[in-house]
């Protein structure tokens, strides 16, 4: 909590100090990003939590709407995919996961700093393999999850933008073709690069 508070105060002070350095113009942006994440999945049939580490890529397109004094709003949509592996310590058991998602986002920016939320559709697939055994067991889930994010952006010559974003996705989705559910909490940190269009 202390570290998180330090990060937030650092971000805010940087934003306030450099609000004049970054005035976003009205216009669209299109970019790609890479991310790494930590996922916690808890199926409703178990009280235990499976912890995955993930990495993924995404595509994002959006539109900035500045108000005044470096403050404004934006909307965007992103879609992507990530792959994950369970961090369970075992020499005989392996779980890999994959996720496809698309998401609508809306947020507010002040200088370099932006904060917002979104609604994401995600398809999760987990494959479980254990030894001695043959084949694997596959679990599929799909549903909508709310999300929150915070990011820090740097515009370069008004044509490009580099952005670091921290995103938290959380909620419960249902199994495909069954009544099982899984509670998800995913935190990702990513780096994105955008083209800016005035």
């Amino acid at each position, binding site marked *: 909590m202390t570290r998180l508070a330090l990060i937030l105060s650092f971000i805010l002070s*940087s934003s306030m100090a450099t609000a004049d350095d970054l005035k976003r113009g009205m216009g669209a942006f299109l970019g790609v990003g890479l991310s*790494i994440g*930590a996922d916690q999945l808890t199926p409703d049939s178990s009280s235990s*939590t*499976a912890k995955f580490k993930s990495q993924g890529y995404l595509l994002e397109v959006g539109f900035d709407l500045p108000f005044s004094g470096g403050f404004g709003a934006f909307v965007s949509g992103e879609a992507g995919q990530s792959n994950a592996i369970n961090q*369970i*310590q075992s020499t005989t*058991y392996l779980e890999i996961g994959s996720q496809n998602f698309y998401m609508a986002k809306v947020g507010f920016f002040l200088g370099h700093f932006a904060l917002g939320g979104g609604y994401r559709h995600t398809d999760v697939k987990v494959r479980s393999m254990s030894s*001695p055994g043959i084949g694997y067991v596959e*679990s599929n889930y799909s549903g909508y999850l709310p999300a929150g994010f915070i990011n820090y952006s740097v515009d370069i010559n008004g044509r490009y933008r580099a952005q670091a974003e921290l995103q938290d996705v959380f909620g419960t989705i249902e199994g495909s073709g069954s009544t099982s559910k899984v509670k998800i909490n995913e935190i990702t940190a990513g780096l994105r690069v955008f083209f800016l269009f005035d």
Partner: protein
Amino acid sequence: MAKIFLNLSLVLALTIAVAIGCGEISSAPFNQAASMGSGYLYVSSGSCYGGGVATSAGPANTVSRYDLASGAFVGLVIDYNQLAPGDSPVAIYEYDDDRLLVLVENAGGRRIDLVKKDGSGASTYIINSTALSAVLRSFILLSDFSLLVSKSSAIEKFNSGKARVTMGANPYVNAPAAPCATSTTLISSVTAHSSGKIVYTHAAATPNNRFGVINSTGYSVAGDCLSATAAPTTTALPTRALFHSGGKLLVSYGSTTAASNFIYSYDFNGGTGAVSGATPVFSDGGTIVNGPSSMAEDPATGDVFVANVTSTYNTIERFHFTGNVMTRALTQPFIAYSAQTRCVSDMKVMK
């Protein structure tokens, strides 16, 4: 500009450290059923008995395993059609993490095999034509690695050294007197309480459709029959007894009379062997449970699997068992009819 890039780098690094790098690494399996902790539902298809119901001809004579969560077929463990002609697996029991015991009925060579769970091989564990001299039906591996084996008319015992243990010249449990009499026709299953007391089910026409409790030291005198409990109805034949982890003794009953297919629970006194509190925990007139040949518990959840061997069923159902009531877990069979569920002789949840 340099300051801005430095800020961006620091923010990203700190964000990653907080979000991703913190916290312990320890994790649980997502799919408990596929992990080594919960295991699979192992199913043997062989000569089966469901309370006198008409069963499908030609059991698969295989041992296979299924995913514990979804009921998906995972693979064959052993196919006895590839071994000696006439081999039929009638019961299975976990031996260790890698192997299981299989009770093989074959008039020309009754035996107990030790089979690798990954299907990589099998070896003979016990051959004893003197002891295994009648139709084999059920067995249990006790905590001291001794075995109790039902051969329909009696119960044999082998010690951990695989030597036969007799009561004089007789099997370990042979023709017990009243109230256990008469129990020499079809001992459909044998199990044991944690106290060591032996519980068997006997499926014969009324008034001999009952289950009995024998002293842990076997049967040598009348007093070794501790109790006997008649089936709830004259047409119900007990097919399987199972001590549930919740403390109840579950007994399945099959019958050609649809209304006499049900599962009862009982309170069992481990000290005296007395049985009381007979309660019908599942009874639907033979619609879902019909010709139950075997029951198995998933120790992780307490759920109970029931195999139906009536020829028009050949299904495996899953039930939740809480508050002394069994409720069907799904709206359809947990495992639908397939070649490997034709005439299920036994089931166990194992790693």
